[in-house]
């Protein structure tokens, strides 16, 4: 059944007739999931935008944000996206499992740096009277930014699981698909962070 384009309609990327294209299916499914997750972030961004002035007499962005610390977080996260990209390239060009594991480990360290400074930021905000129960603004902030942090945390857990699996069994089809999906997730979180950095932090400080 070659030559007839109707054999493989839709998004089937590989010309397989009786066999369903597993990789294309899994990756497409994950893209759709990310689309759904993007809606969640979008809505919480919108909620934040409506509540940024609702400080109810409490501290606002200028009193609470420490742009120096946020700059470190941003650098760490953007760099981690780059190192994850190197892990993906190592996987793609069959550089062996150790290269992939090494780059993922570097990514993990950078993610920890990000989370460490983020938690530090939150504690500072608490100390300055900016806890989530203070006002609509602090609620919206703590609804949005830690949600991203939670995503990063779950990405870290996933990364550890994948590394352990590679250490034990090497790289098989399932691990490869896992690394590819986590890559999408990780870069997606980077994009969300860029939005947080621009809208929440820079927007709050101008």
């Amino acid at each position: 059944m070659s030559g007839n384009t109707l054999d493989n309609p839709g998004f089937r990327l590989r010309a397989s007739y009786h066999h369903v294209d597993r990789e294309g299916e899994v990756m497409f499914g994950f893209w759709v999931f990310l689309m759904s997750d993007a809606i969640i972030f979008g809505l919480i961004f919108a909620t934040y935008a409506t509540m940024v002035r609702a400080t109810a007499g409490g501290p606002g962005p200028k009193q609470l944000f420490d742009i120096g610390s946020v700059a470190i977080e941003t650098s760490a996260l953007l760099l981690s996206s780059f190192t994850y990209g190197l892990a993906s390239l190592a996987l793609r060009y069959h550089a062996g499992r150790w290269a992939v594991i090494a780059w993922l480990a570097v990514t993990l360290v950078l993610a920890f740096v990000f989370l460490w400074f983020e938690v530090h930021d939150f504690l500072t905000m608490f100390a300055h009277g900016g806890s989530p129960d203070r006002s609509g603004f602090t609620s919206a902030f703590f609804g949005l930014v830690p949600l991203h942090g939670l995503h990063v945390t779950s990405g870290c857990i996933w990364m550890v699981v994948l590394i352990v699996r590679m250490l034990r069994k090497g790289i098989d089809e399932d691990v490869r698909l896992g690394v590819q999906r986590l890559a999408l997730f990780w870069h997606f979180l980077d994009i969300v962070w860029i939005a947080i950095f621009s809208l929440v932090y820079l927007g709050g400080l101008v």
Partner: protein
Amino acid sequence: MSLTQFIFGRLSLHSLPFWSAIQHPTIENIVNDTIASGAASMVIVGAVATAGLITYFGKWRYLWTEWLTSVDHKRIGIMYIVVAFVMLSRALIEAVLMRTQQAFGLGGGFLSPEHFGELFSTHGTIMIFFMAMPFLIGLINFVMPQQIGTRDVSFPVMNSISLGLTVAGAMLVMISLVVGKFSTGGWSGYPPYTETTFNPGVGPDYWIWAVSLSGIGTMLTGINFAVTIYKRRAPGMTLMRMPLFTWTALCTSILMIFAMPPLTVATVLLALDRYLGFHFFTNGLGGNMMNFANLFWLFGHPEVYILILPAFGVYSEVIPAFSGKIIYGYTSLVLATMVIALLSFTVWLHHFFTMGQSAAVNATFGIATMMIGIPTGVKIYDWMLTMVRGRIRFTVPMVYSLGFMMLFVIGGMSGIILANPSIDYQVHNTLFLVAHFHNVLIPGLLFGMLAGYHFWFPKAFGFRLNERWGMASALCWIFGFMFAFFPLYALGLLGFPRRTVAFYNPIYVPYLAIALFGGVIILAALACLVIQLVVSVIQRDQNRVPAGDPWNASALEWSVAAPAPEYNFAVLPEVTARDAFMVAKEHGTAYLPPERFTDIEMPKNSPMGMILCITGAFAAFGLVWHIWWMVGIAMLATIGAMIWHGSLRDYERIIPAQEIREDYMRWLKLVHDAHPVSRDHEIEHDNAGLADLHETMEAAE
């Protein structure tokens, strides 16, 4: 914190439904607690009786291996529909109880306002999240993969997990009958009423977690269905050759992917308010409840179309089948479905016209709302034109379809009336609105689901349902609906507010009495459905349709045996045109054995769905009652189970070609032995599922 508090959280003897009657035995407490305890004991007796029967017949292993851990899309679909029927029974009884209270509500009635509040909240929550959603998801699960010619959905284990999460949510609502009280905030749970300031108890928490669990399950289902339809269609099945039910399944899945996140956001933010003292929707300190209204209806309006589109899909299958024609205006029906899906995201604000935005905003959303009437009208005309000069048979699904067409148009028209903001101001929050949305949801959604249930039941179990009891039920539904809800339009125009426990103006009484009468007829309709199922099972040997095509229908699911083998198709079909099976029958290529059989890989059973069902239910129960150790363990178990599942490698098993050939040949012999029946005799015992092909040819000309 004391040890008891640590172990039991907020749970205590006060959580039992009969406790206040014992403590303060006033008449009101005794009446209300007796009803509540009766309901609670029905839940417990039902659960114990079910468990007892399974033990008595020694069916636990069968249940576990063949059903609960099965990842077969057909079985998962059937389980979804079982859940839907169980929940339908409860919510319907609640509805009749509310009708009874209002019929006797002049000056008081017998239910307390809190009890009445719980009733309308659980009724709405169950009917939307645990009756309608499981029913349509079950139907799509069962039908869609067979219609597009594939063997399973893209992510079979995730499908089982979706079912597990939905069941966990449903269990939570059932548990709320036994311990504690459900929310009194309605199915939409608006803050600030549902904030801790006004509702410190467990009610809103039950609502939040039940709805969140089902919402996450539904989002996963949406991803699963959409990917399946995009990726797994049989060779040659282009988008414009898909059966219309599959088209509506696709649009519904897209809506689920985009519309379930706002629900999750709304419920989780409300939970943050209630659990951690955030100020998203509170009255003071910068909270803004309008954000909840926007978020909730950003979900809630597309949800309406998630509900109705699959029903439209059923009608688009049933009406041509029982008119002996192909569907009229296929392309326009596809376009109308897509337009409805798109417009559904542009109208959410009409749920709160009265909440203070400018006239220009209201007018915009009012016009957008009226525009949805256009594609819907196109569909109604297409269905009517499909029937013109057809060989129409008044079978049960067709009667539901006709009831739908007549009643749904009335419901749609009252929607157009409500879409006008200035009129909406007059009838906002009255029974007029209640009449409107029941008028679209019962004849629209529920009739569609029931028509689908009758239509595809033979495909699922291999025998047809009893026509006589089915007809009795359909007529009871149609006339019961009219009696129960048409008076509500009048009551609404007379100013009767919705969600009202009692009233003091005797003018309402006759209308409410008629509505109660209608409610009782609907209860009879449910009873008829139960009797029908029992009678049909007893008489199953007389109504078997092993050849698989009892209605001389056109889509691929009818081209295989009934019940279908677990792999659906011995060899994946090749599609060259729309109405693939009808075309095959016309060309004489149906029922031809394939040249070659090959081994088939099918996914193995997985306990993941049941594991996440149990951990999800425990986590939610712990959250409701502040039993933090339970939440912690359940969360860790969930993560552990996911990591364990990810480490599995051997998740497929092979069905050998020899076995498939034997099954196929056995079925083919049944087909050759079967006596073909013409359309006029399809509800008689002769119907073995083989249509009179001569007649098919005639229809084609």
